[in-house]
């Protein structure tokens, strides 16, 4: 009986989530769908970062740069090779995954703050690197999908026709991003629940202990970097498609900082919390600007919000969720 109740709760939750996904754009204005779509980009990137930092314990302040790899791969394929923009997403993910793997290699020798600074260095260097290889990246100007990519699904017309349905551009972007987001979430959840997830957590909790039970630290860490890289790459590609332009300024070190803030505010080690993290990073800066647009005030308010949230919820939204949900799940699963 209890078992059916447990399964019932899962089905209900999944159903509610899917319903929310399907209906959300119709509940808000068309313009807000675009904001939601951008929040989705953050969501995907943060879920990936959480796998690396929250579950495997490797700090990265360079995920903005990995998003750049994905974004520029997508844009370059669309502009130079005339791919349809949506098909570039998987390849962007793979490219960023490979770069993530490569970053993971020096990570084997560094840990903690040194790893954070090394990844931070990568994030800081990225805009300069992008400007240097201007043949591929369009240098300081960047790549403009709107003008240079003929096979763009989204475009000037403002509507998108796919599989015979016509919908507004913003709605399409929302469904595309969050659709991929949901799939990405499920994949992450499966990874984290399974053997690989346990291996990740073992490395996070104690590398020495993990190694002593035969876990290959090198393989595990680089794999975590690669997987989170794929997520960042996909997010970057989606960002490119949404913005219809990529340039070095889209991917400064501030983006890497925002991603980490989102992951921690959402709650490291909690996947559902990442939704909160994504919304925090998307909406709080915006709200701050709306309260006052005098120079400096939005940043001031944003900083204050981050500090306040961390003081009140040191383990992020995920931590809070866990504390609230524990009595419920214990009742469901532990009663004989």
């Amino acid at each position, binding site marked *: 009986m209890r078992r059916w109740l447990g399964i019932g709760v899962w089905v209900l939750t999944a159903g509610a989530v899917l319903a929310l996904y399907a209906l959300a754009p119709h509940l808000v204005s068309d313009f807000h769908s675009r904001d939601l779509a951008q929040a989705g980009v953050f969501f995907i990137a943060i879920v990936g970062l959480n796998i690396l930092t929250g579950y495997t314990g490797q700090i990265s302040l360079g995920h903005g740069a990995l998003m750049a790899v994905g974004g520029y791969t997508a844009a370059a394929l669309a502009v130079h090779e005339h791919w349809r923009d949506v098909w570039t997403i998987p390849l962007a993910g793979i490219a960023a995954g490979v770069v993530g793997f490569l970053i993971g290699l020096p990570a084997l020798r560094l840990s903690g703050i040194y790893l954070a600074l090394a990844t931070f260095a990568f994030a800081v260097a990225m805009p300069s690197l992008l400007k240097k290889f201007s043949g591929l990246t369009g240098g300081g100007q960047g790549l403009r999908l709107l003008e240079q990519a003929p096979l763009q699904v989204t475009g000037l017309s403002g509507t998108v026709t796919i599989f015979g349905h016509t919908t507004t551009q913003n709605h399409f972007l929302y469904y595309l991003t969050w659709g991929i987001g949901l799939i990405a979430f499920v994949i992450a959840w499966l990874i984290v629940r399974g053997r690989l997830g346990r291996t990740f957590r073992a490395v996070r909790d*104690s590398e020495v202990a993990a190694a002593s039970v035969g876990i290959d630290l090198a393989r595990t860490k680089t794999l975590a970097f690669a997987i989170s890289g794929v997520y960042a790459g996909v997010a970057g590609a989606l960002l490119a498609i949404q913005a219809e332009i990529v340039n070095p300024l889209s991917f400064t070190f501030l983006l890497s900082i925002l991603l980490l803030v989102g992951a921690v505010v959402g709650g490291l080690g909690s996947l559902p919390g990442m939704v909160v993290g994504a919304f925090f990073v998307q909406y709080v800066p915006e709200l701050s600007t709306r309260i006052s647009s005098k120079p400096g005030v939005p*940043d001031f308010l944003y900083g204050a919000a981050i500090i306040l949230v961390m003081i009140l919820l040191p383990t992020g939204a995920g931590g809070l969720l866990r504390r609230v949900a524990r009595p419920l799940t214990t009742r469901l699963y532990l009663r004989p």
Partner: protein
Amino acid sequence: MLLAFDWTQLAQQIVIGLSSGGVWATLAVALVLIYRSTGVVNFAQGEMAMFSTFIAWSLVHHGLSYWGAFFLTVALSFLGGVAVERVVIKPVERAPVLTVVIVTLGLFFLVSGAARWIWSPEVRSLPNAFSTRPIEIAGVAFSIQDLGTIAVSLGAVGLLWLFFRFTKLGLASRAAAVNPEATRLVGVRVSWMLALGWGLAAAMGAVSGMLTAPALASFDQNLMQPVLLYAFAGAVLGGLGSPLGAVVGSLLLGVLINLIGTYVDWVGTDLRLPVALAVILGVLLVKPTGLFGRAEVTRV
């Protein structure tokens, strides 16, 4: 070949390099002070230093001399650092390290925004700290400004060293950074040692900012962002746990970058930072704890 080499230019470039390195060193020491006692790198250190520099500007604007403003600002920054620790860091004392890192990132935005809010984002300038006349030593012309910057940076760091080495409070502060539990048991209020660390770090940051600003014709709120990056690089090069390492690392980095910039053609000014970053990465890969860092032996 040796006779044709321009030793004069080398000497001058070394001094220039030491001067930049000195400025980075004071900020790097600030980073290490906080890292040593809290295990966290304060990402807002540069912005706090910038804020101090703007306070100095206001003081000068109201009639104080440069050096009068300098010392008053250092004192005010010390108090500011203590206040920041008590208000913002103490509440998350027992939180996971990454939470505290995010708090410093929040502090970055907060202080940066505050500086733009209080002083609008127009360019300003500070009077020169030293005369801009050149001075001749052994027949080579050096700038008094560079020499003065080196002297003040090393002087500030030196005073700090004296404090830690020879005073009771300095001893307690060092002990608290190494083993807070045991230090509590000798009667030291460890919590206040943390506040002291933040105060001293803020004071050092103020020195760094006030040495950076006059050398530029004008500055704005973005003043310290590149300095912070170089300070990180210098601190990492020297080993994050070691204040001495931070100083040596920063000076070395300053000289290295300046020499590379002078003698290697394809390294223009906008590749200086990536070169610096590449140097750190290189060092880290070979010696992960930096030049002076001691490998931490973890007990299992």
